[in-house]
């Protein structure tokens, strides 16, 4: 297992009226992309601000490579790049002057990576940063966060405002960063853009982590679901007698949904050759389904408890 870069130890930041984050406890491992999903106001930004040391938790602490996120906030910035959720630039005349100013803050002499990113994102930085479109602001902020080649990247909803093409480009850039061994925390309220990218995804709701999903397990589940429809009733009835795990049956359409273990693929498809199928379809498993299941289970548990 990789070393832990950020360890969030039971932090609570209570803003009252159920707002804030409560007893968050998770970690970011070196080299992983960690997704942070939740609706607006669920506590994603509050968490990231605590990692940045901008706000102090009421309880608990965050450990970043042996440093305290709040007390050693200046030290940690040496290896953290940050894209804030709401982007507003300093009062400077052009995007270039902003990038140069940030480089000065970072004591960064070599702007070659910044220039490379500018090319990749196809952005014209001669514009006044305060008058940029949301997408341009987003790109400029991302360039500023990445240009220092920081080991840890904290990206608070970095893809909002980007068109689909740009979003793809951006995710590719993050893939490259990951390949370089960066640890990345990315928050979003869209499951799809995160599940392709992340190693693990945490779902946060009302300031509490619901679950942390390991994407590998979702992408390559031990059992896969298939939906099969038969051309005739006989086959349908016959199939039901096979030694195969059936999840659901739809009598009137001659449909079954089955769950097949990895090792049983061969024997399963062999068995299928005996039947006259109308179609067979894999019911893809994804993050949304995963969390929905988790959610339903939680709610059931909750009801049972009541």
């Amino acid at each position, binding site marked *: 297992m990789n070393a832990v870069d950020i360890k969030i130890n039971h932090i609570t930041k209570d803003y009252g009226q159920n707002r804030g984050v409560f007893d968050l406890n998770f970690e970011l491992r070196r080299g992983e992309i960690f997704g942070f999903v939740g609706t607006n106001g669920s506590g994603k930004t509050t968490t990231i*601000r605590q990692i940045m040391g901008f706000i102090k938790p009421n309880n608990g602490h965050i450990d970043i490579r042996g440093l305290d996120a709040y007390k050693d906030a*200046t030290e940690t910035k040496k290896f953290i790049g*940050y894209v*804030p959720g709401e982007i507003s630039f300093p009062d*400077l*005349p052009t995007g270039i002057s902003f990038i140069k100013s940030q480089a000065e*803050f970072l004591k960064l002499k070599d702007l070659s990576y910044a220039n490379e990113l500018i090319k990749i994102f196809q952005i014209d930085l001669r514009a006044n940063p305060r008058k940029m479109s949301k997408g341009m602001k987003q790109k400029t902020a991302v360039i500023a966060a990445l240009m220092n080649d920081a080991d840890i990247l904290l990206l608070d909803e970095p893809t909002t405002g980007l068109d689909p093409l740009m979003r793809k480009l951006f995710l590719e850039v993050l893939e490259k960063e990951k390949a370089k061994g960066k640890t990345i925390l990315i928050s979003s309220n869209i499951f799809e853009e995160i599940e392709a990218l992340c190693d693990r995804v945490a779902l946060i709701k009302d300031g509490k982590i619901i679950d942390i999903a390991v994407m590998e397990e979702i992408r390559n589940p031990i059992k896969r679901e298939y939906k099969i429809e038969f051309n005739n009733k006989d086959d349908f009835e016959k199939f039901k007698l096979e030694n195969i795990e059936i999840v659901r049956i739809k009598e009137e359409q001659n449909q079954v949904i089955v769950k097949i273990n990895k090792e049983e693929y061969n024997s399963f498809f062999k068995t299928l050759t005996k039947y006259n199928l109308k179609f067979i379809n894999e019911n893809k498993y994804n993050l949304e389904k995963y969390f929905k299941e988790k959610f339903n289970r939680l709610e059931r548990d909750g009801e049972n408890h009541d």
Partner: protein
Amino acid sequence: MISVPLLKQSIKANGVAWLLVTLATSIMLGILIFVLGNIQSNEIRDSLKDSFIKSELEAQFKSGAIDGFVIVYDTIYQLYPEIKNTYDQVTNLSNVAVLTYDQLKNQFNHPNPKEGAIQIILNNTPDEDKPLATFILTSVLTYYETNNPTQNELTQFISKLVIDLIINNMEEEVPEETRAVVKSISQQIIEIYSKNNELTIENMQTIARLYIENSFYDQLGTPNEQTDKMLEVFGYDTIYELLEAFGYNKTTVNGIASSGIIQYISYINNGMEHDLAKSEITKSLFSQMPEDVAESLTELGDMNIDHLVVGTIFYKMAGLLLPIVYVITTANSLIAGQVDSGSLAFVLSTPTKRRKVTITQMIYLIGSLICMYIIIGVVSFIATMLVKDKTFSITYQDLLKLNVGALITVIAISGICFLASAWFNRSKYSVGVGGGLSMFFLVSTILGLFGSSTIPEALRIKAMNFFNYTTIITLFDSEKILSGGTYIYGLLILLGIAIITYIIGIIRFDKKDLPL
């Protein structure tokens, strides 16, 4: 301890505002000094002073005239019965004497009709009246015998005789001047009485009035405390020199006295009390003031328009307005504005300490104010140099002190705005508290001016002085800088305010949660 890129950002972001404020304030001051140096600003003061002094002088004339009138009137009132009696007695005696004399002389061919007449009349006179009667009869008949006068001449002689009797009747110690006054008044009384056989109140008032009217100007020469003080204040040897300097002559002075008395008579005849009537007539611009009139005049004489306009109105008000506006907007944009918008996230996501941010911004703010006042100061020097031979009366040294004082004041205000900016995460609260307080201080100073000792007492509204206690700008005592006195403690307190507010601001910003 400071962040160079942040300093650069602050300069780029606020430089234009700084430049505009600096230029506008410098130009305003330059023009002000230039104008003051050329319009002979003290002419304004002098003409103001003139009108005050004239008003005061005229009030004093009227007051003196009324006092004189009252004394003369009282004298007439007291003299009248005595004169009336004496006159009646003398007239009766002289009529009888002349009649008897003529009879003795013409019908009886008396060898000595004078003595005869006297004897006859004395025989019919009570013993106690005999000495006076003898004197009157002797005088009248001697005159009658020697001069053979007409009736008119005889009447005049009798009048004179009556006056002599009145004067001789007065106490030994009555001074010569009073005797002269009584003599003059008695003449008038007798003149009217002899014609009308009575003397009305109106007659008495007229006599008194005319007497004062004719003698007032000459009597001003008599030394008294009030005039001596005035002469001392204005540096004249005699009251007449002073009167001449302010354009008065005998006719105008007597005219003023006369109008005062006429007013007084009409008030009194309409039933007004003496005190009220007098104060009503002698109201001057100074008369409502409790302090000594001479003191007020001294103060007005000392008033310096350059000190008032440059020292107070410019350096404490007009010239502070733009720098304070600059401080309010800049202090906010240096911290709270960047927290509110979120742009400070980019600075704090680099290895830049919060304290480094606040100290850098503090240095920018204070540094920009120092530069601003260096430029304003240089402009004030140049402007003064251009008008120096003329009438501008503030020295370079005092200008330097004024600039330093104003700078310290603005820095103290900047500390308050900085504290608000470091304390609040929202611009609206930062500007509301920091800007609100600063503006309150400035407006209080403007209101307080009307009650401050900078304004001559004659124009001052004392109650407004309250506002001077509600503003820290009072601690910058520009008047003391210009006219002498200790001003240093106020400036030290302002520096203390600046130090404390900046320190609290820096500490607060270190500790608070930032929504970035």
